[in-house]
């Protein structure tokens, strides 16, 4: 299975997480969300490293 948060084609991320991801050029589909109902938080984006999500 692909890691990430794109269940049902929806990526749920906080506004701040989106802002930061955009600045970093990061694809939110790759990030695992730890917020409400799996929503991606700013910390998820900050802590994201390709390796840490490989599992």
């Amino acid at each position: 299975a692909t890691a990430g948060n794109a269940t049902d084609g929806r990526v749920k991320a906080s506004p701040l997480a989106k802002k930061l991801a955009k600045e970093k050029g990061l694809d939110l589909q790759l990030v695992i969300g730890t917020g409400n109902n799996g929503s991606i938080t700013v910390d998820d984006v900050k802590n994201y490293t390709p390796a840490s999500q490989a599992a």
Partner: protein
Amino acid sequence: MKQYDLIVVGGGPGGYVTAIYAAQNGLKTALIEEKDLGGTCLNWGCIPTKALAKNAEVLRTIFDSKDYGISIDPNQIKVDYAMAQKRSREVSKKLNKGVQGLLHKNKVDIFKDRAKLVNGTNVKLTASEEILAAKNIVLATGSHPFKIPGFDYQNPNIMTSRGALEMTDLKASDEVVVIGAGAIGMEFASIWASYGAQVTVIEMLPRILPNEDEAVSKEMTRAFKKRGVKIRAGYKVTLVSIKGKKIEVNLEKNGESEKIMGDKLLVSAGVRANTENLGLESAGIKINQRGFLDINDQFQTSCATVYAIGDLTGKLALAHVASAQGLEVVHQILGATVKKINYSNIPRCTYTYPEVASVGLTEEQAKGAGYKVKVGEFPLLANGKSLAMNETTGFVKIVADEKYHEILGIHLVGGHVTELIAAAAGYIDLEFTADDIAQVIHPHPSVSEAIMEAAHAVVSKAIHI
């Protein structure tokens, strides 16, 4: 021996909400409460104080009615504080009955008794001597007002909030002294000042509402002084003595002393956890240095089957903290996702006139935490609704980080702003930036627009100032 999935000890907003939510989610649940369902909050805290605050608001409105084209001879206004207290008690009673109804409806077994832990899964009822067993136990025994030692609390005019909620003989000619300018002290000061009493508020720390942003303390000092309340911040109470029918309070600041005479004295100096005779030792649970129970992020005490929530845990002593912790305990027991509570992002309200509400970090705290801070402010004097309502004291202050405009704190002073802070709590919790708030279309005219304007001020500039 009766077997439960969950036993909840204490029927305050921590305990009863936990019990209802647990039962709704299929757990066989017992609730043990020795006194009144609803706990401090419904019976001797949040609710009766707000009922009194409403009475006070009505009275203030009447005294100010000339501004609105209504004239009433002040001598024709008969004020009965005992009746105001009666309404307050009735509201509490109604909610207390309501909680009982909810518990019944959700099939929670209620035991009106005092509980004591036998071990991590057994609780003994003190009066009936019955022992109940459960897989998990939640302690939600709450707290009681701290009594500064050395005062004569037998004297009916020297009281904590508990006594203040029973006191019925306030007169407009009374001089009242309030020791402690936290939310509770300030709320009573505001109520009594509305009833015409000459109120003095004494605070040991350098400013009233010391946990709030400095700008809030400043605005509230100004507002209360304008209402005729004397503020003595940075003062130490050195002696309280009885002089005939009066209470003499001696104060000191920088070596200078002052004497204030009062008919009544409210001691409002924080709370102490209800840990006595709870049988904590038998479950191997220790009380921490401050007298509260330590919990981990899953709300467990050092005994894994015993959870603690609410005032007992020494976090923010607020009803919604107790309830929120309770919901998460149930999630934990059910094996559902547990939300980690960030205690700095809890909305904090003071129901004075004007009101205070805040969430997140103060400017000082944000700077202390190493943030580069950008502040956006907007005064209610520039807000159309506030002008129409003739309630222009107050402001919105947003503390954001400079780079992303992440909202770190929102601080409000003004009429009924305690109804606006939930939005701010949502914004912080859901990680809105000031830019997001600024572009949400707010209804006109509304006080809420001031939040949008303060957000504009963070992003670039407010429009209406």
